């Protein structure tokens, strides 16, 4: 049994089957992008263990194809197992061993990156100080107790829980949140906007601004802006009902919406927090990009967008920031520019974009615990190749030296170098 198990995981057939399935997955996943968009296709087909099929009208999830993670994992196991089975610690194989170790590390590192890498962004205008970055796609329903003058207590509910609807109860909130309506993507609705369903709320911004559902986005450069109609209910009755949406919190949608409605409803500030009081405590409620807090703060001193003189051709983008970490004692100015990111505290800050009109900078913040693995893996492969090459070279040179007698070498006289057999006269019989 064990033998069969080992044979299965070390077989070349498994490698071929995995590669075949990977081909099918890439084909099917590429086609799926037409229907569900690039980002969703990546999540469902490639960043998953299984690809599921849901028959219409049912809530069933039937796996019909291994996902990218599963195929990659099996390939990795296959490679490792085959390697262990045929492992021979000999001097001659050291180069091959190094090359394979590099490949295994590359696969494993990429897998860890897929799972643990967190990408977010930090939008800063000159003078802004932030100790958090925001997810480009993930959202959360945040209920913040702002009563304390020094600090806020945040209860962050992931969008995946909100999407399930129903009631959300947590001992950290003195009331229950009732999800009355959830649109995974939404659009502010005016009186002339076509569409049947327009949602308004009893309190806050939603009293004046209605929302309609919108199709999910299909491209990588667009994000879904969810809307939630949420009611807070205590044991004494309803506390309030609000529309919360990324339309009020996510850059640049919120700024765009605020600008759009300024002429129509000048008193409505969609970017202002929606607050309420309950049992003497003040709360804010918002649907917002997931926040990743840091134990340090970043302040934008200046954003610089240079152009070649007399043209609009970009020459350089750079952000001058001030980094402040009282715990580590760091307090310094740093310049981040193209191809010169800031690496700090396990995070890398890239100059990623800028606000229209050069009003501010957009830094891409990447946390990847496995970020060093590709470098180490490539170094191992390169070292293995060099070792293997040198071993062959030395071996060849040694053999050559052994086979070459001094008499056969007529280099000094300028005569051509002869094969040893011919030079020694042994080949005459041929």
């Amino acid at each position, binding site marked *: 049994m064990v033998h069969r198990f080992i044979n299965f995981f070390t077989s070349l057939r498994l490698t071929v089957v995995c590669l075949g399935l990977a081909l099918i997955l890439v084909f099917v996943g590429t086609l799926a992008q037409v229907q569900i968009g690039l980002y969703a296709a990546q999540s469902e087909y490639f960043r998953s263990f299984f690809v599921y099929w849901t028959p219409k009208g049912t809530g069933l999830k039937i796996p019909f194809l291994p996902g990218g993670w599963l195929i990659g994992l099996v390939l990795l196991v296959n490679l490792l197992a085959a390697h262990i089975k045929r492992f021979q610690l000999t001097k001659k194989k050291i180069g091959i061993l190094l090359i394979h170790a590099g490949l295994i590390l590359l696969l494993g590192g990429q897998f860890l990156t897929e799972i643990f890498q967190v990408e977010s962004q930090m939008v*800063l*205008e*000159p003078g802004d100080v932030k*100790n958090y970055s925001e997810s480009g796609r993930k959202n959360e329903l945040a209920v913040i107790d702002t009563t304390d003058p020094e600090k806020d207590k945040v209860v962050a509910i992931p969008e995946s829980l909100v999407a399930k609807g129903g009631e959300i109860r947590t001992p950290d909130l003195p009331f229950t949140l009732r999800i009355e309506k959830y649109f995974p993507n939404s659009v502010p609705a005016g*009186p*002339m906007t076509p569409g049947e369903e327009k949602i308004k709320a009893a309190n806050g911004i939603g009293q004046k601004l*209605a929302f309609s559902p919108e199709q999910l986005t299909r491209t990588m450069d667009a994000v879904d802006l969810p809307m939630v109609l949420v009611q807070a209910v205590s044991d004494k009755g309803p506390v309030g009902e609000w529309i919360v949406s990324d339309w009020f919190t996510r850059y640049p949608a919120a700024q765009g919406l605020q600008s759009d409605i300024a002429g*129509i409803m000048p008193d409505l500030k969609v970017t202002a927090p929606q607050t309420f009081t309950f049992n003497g405590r003040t709360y804010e409620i918002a649907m917002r990009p997931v926040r990743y807090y840091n134990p340090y703060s970043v302040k934008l001193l200046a954003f610089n967008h240079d152009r070649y003189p007399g043209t609009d051709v970009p020459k350089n983008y*750079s952000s001058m920031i001030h980094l402040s970490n009282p715990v580590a004692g760091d307090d310094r100015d740093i310049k981040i520019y193209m191809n010169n990111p800031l690496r700090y505290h396990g995070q890398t800050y890239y100059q990623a974009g*800028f606000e229209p009109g050069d009003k501010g900078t957009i830094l891409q913040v990447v946390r990847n615990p496995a970020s060093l693995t590709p470098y180490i893996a490539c170094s191992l492969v390169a070292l293995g190749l060099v070792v293997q090459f040198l071993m062959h070279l030395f071996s060849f040179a040694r053999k050559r030296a052994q086979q070459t007698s001094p008499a056969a070498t007529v280099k000094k006289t300028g005569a051509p170098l002869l094969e040893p057999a011919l030079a020694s006269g042994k080949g005459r019989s041929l």
Partner: protein
Amino acid sequence: MLLAASVLNVRAHDQIQVYTVPKEHPGTPLPQAALAMDPSGIPVNSAPIHWTLPEGWKELPPDGIRRASFDVGAANGTKANVAITSFPGSVGTELGNVNRWRGELALEPIAESEITSAPLTVDSFPGKLYDIAGASARTVVAEISCNGNSWFIKLRGDTAAVAAAKPVFQEFLKSIHFAAPSVESDPHSNLSMQPAINPRDLSSAREASVEGPKLNVPAQWVETAPTSSMVLKSFSVGEAKAEAAVTISVLANEGGGALANINRWRGQIGLPPVTEESQLSGLTEPLQTLAGKAILTDLLGTDARTGQPERMIAAIVPHEGLTWFYKMMGDAKVVEGQKNTFVEFVKTVQYP
């Protein structure tokens, strides 16, 4: 191990997180000097406004949303300062702004017709200068529209201090220019980068950020609170049992087009939709307004709730990339009686 780690990681993302964070403090703009030069000595061009600081004025530390503020150095224990703020697009209405400034001086709000201002040009951009005097304090505000932004440069303080500082303030305004300085910087290699993209194309709707039109509201119309978002104004006419409602709204570009809107209106009073654009000519009549050519439609249907005849007269007025919708709907007799008034009202609306 990898599998377990990934499962745990996925689980962690699905759970409610509770944490405490220090209070967020809004960003404060840096003093002009800090923006003009980074520590490496390379000039940077983040500041879109530049000025020459008058003698005796002192730049104050950053404060809230102000781009910059100054102490004008008043004498005899009086105080006055200058604040520069800017906002994208147009901010509120002129009346709203003036009454806010009046409120700061403990003055009563005024009507639009009572607003006084002097024309002003700052760095070739047009603007207005308001001078509002209160009991013991005075405010002089220059409002300038520049490249899609509204700039407010406000001198405010004790009456005597503002009076003394006003000539210097006017010189200060002349020294302002909005052009960004040319920049020389280190020649780092670069990749092409795009400005941030709005997830939705709001460019068409952005044009809707305009000030409201000037209306000659008939005396018998009573203004009511808009019942729907994005309705600019609404009025009621008639009595409770027989009344009509007038609404005004605006949308960017064609606002969905005449056919779609007229069909929607037809549906509201129980009429079947028309399918062809060509049928519209029989349902509409041209209307000449101050904004130019418009169309008017007059529909008679039935109120679904009461079964009584219901009439709707609506005008679609395109003007400078926007489409204005005027609609009077209600009791057929009331609408009939108000038709000429409504048409005259639509024709005389003055657009900003």
